[in-house]
């Protein structure tokens, strides 16, 4: 297994399956004092309450102490300290660094300037590998398998990093993809080329209703304002798809709806009580997967 978790592409199929199997042990036994006496740094150079709480809880459930910051106001970084200096300083105090940073490639760079394992908790629009691993864990949990699953990805497929990473990670498992997106937010050509080279089938549509009944996983995403440079473009697309309970008649029995959360208006609240809604359980799974990531990178599993 690589020293750090920076990009899902660094992890082989075996590495991924190992993380998922340890996550299952964590879910079965939610408090394990594996990391008693260890210190985990959670450095959030850009705020993200959900991801930070999930990592901090994961570390604490393993018995570790947590230090860090949740945004950079009133820190030495706001006074102009370089990323390298912050990482070098913190690495003297802790055993592993979890970091989120607005610059793409920041986590990779951090992993090169210190000897500790680094977990990338999001580097701008680039990677968010713990999200990808929890998505895989959830697909495995709901379908009983990762192989030969049909995934319908919906929403912003152009800028959405979670769908890009999930697509790359799923390529190990012989999937079929459906891409549901408005014309301006379609899956970029480089990812379609990636699939073609591997002989992985996909279809594209701009209609949400078209493929609801022929997928195992409906992966909904939010159109993220911060990825648009033009606010007018964002206004045009933010409400492009809205999934409602009435649209779910005739879907596969095993079909589950996932969403990286937070949702804005993509999934109506009346969907929450259907047997297909799984996004809250998916968020919970994030904690077990992050427990697994931290334990595995520190060599405890």
């Amino acid at each position, binding site marked *: 297994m690589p020293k750090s978790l920076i*990009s899902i592409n660094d992890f082989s199929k075996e590495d991924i399956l190992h993380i998922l199997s340890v996550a299952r042990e964590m879910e079965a036994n939610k408090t394990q004092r594996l990391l008693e006496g260890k210190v985990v740094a959670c450095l959030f150079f850009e705020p993200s309450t959900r991801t930070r709480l999930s990592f901090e809880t994961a570390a604490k459930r393993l018995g570790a102490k947590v230090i860090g910051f949740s945004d950079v106001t009133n820190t030495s970084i706001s006074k102009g300290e370089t*990323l390298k200096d912050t990482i070098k300083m913190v690495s003297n105090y802790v055993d592993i660094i979890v970091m989120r940073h*607005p*610059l*793409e490639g920041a986590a*990779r760079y951090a992993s090169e300037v210190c000897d500790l394992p680094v977990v990338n908790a999001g580097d701008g*629009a680039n990677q968010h590998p713990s999200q990808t691993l929890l998505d895989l864990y959830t697909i495995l949990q709901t379908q009983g398998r990762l192989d030969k699953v049909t995934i319908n990805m919906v929403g912003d497929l152009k800028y959405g990093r979670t769908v890009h990473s999930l697509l790359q990670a799923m390529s190990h498992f012989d999937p079929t993809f459906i891409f549901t997106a408005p014309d301006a937010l379609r899956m970029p050509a480089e990812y379609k080329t990636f699939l073609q080279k591997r002989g992985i089938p996909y279809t594209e549509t701009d209609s949400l209703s078209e493929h609801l009944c022929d997928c195992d996983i409906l992966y909904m995403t939010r159109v993220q304002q911060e990825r648009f440079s033009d606010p007018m473009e964002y206004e045009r697309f933010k409400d492009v798809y809205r999934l409602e309970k009435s649209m779910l008649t005739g879907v596969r029995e095993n079909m589950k709806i996932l969403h990286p959360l937070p949702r804005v208006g993509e999934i109506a609240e009346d969907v929450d009580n259907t047997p297909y809604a799984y996004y809250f359980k998916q968020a919970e799974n994030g904690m077990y997967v992050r427990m697994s990531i931290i334990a595995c990178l520190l060599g405890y599993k």
Partner: protein
Amino acid sequence: MSERNTQLKVSAIKDGTVLDHIPAGRLFQVVDILDLSHCSNPVTIGVNLESKSQGRKGIIKIADRFFEDEELSRIALAAPEATVNIIKDYQVVSKKKIELPAEVVGIAKCSNPMCVTNNQDVPTRFTTVVEGEKVKLLCHYCEKTTEEFVPLRH
């Protein structure tokens, strides 16, 4: 007619380097990469010359200058098919093909403005990806592809 004579027709140099078989459209990129507009040596540039293998090619002759391999590998980013002739006393004493490096460190600029290399003091690092006759650069940090080579300004 021998190749030597063809070259002499453009303009012979006594000692120096001749870069040949540059695709005509990339000639000025190579001029930029080697920063030849700030070069005080005599430089002869030929563009849109006929070439049996390439259609139209470009050629650059730089008198009294011999490049390091690292400098030459930069040319590969714009013109991987170019050849380098080392001239001593009007004779080609060695001829080499430019090797496209698998990795390019500290030479090219990442086209992604949000890349850590454009915002912190981090040397750029790319792996080269050949697509047809184009060379693309895959950033080691932000994982984005830079389509057009832009030299890093030091």
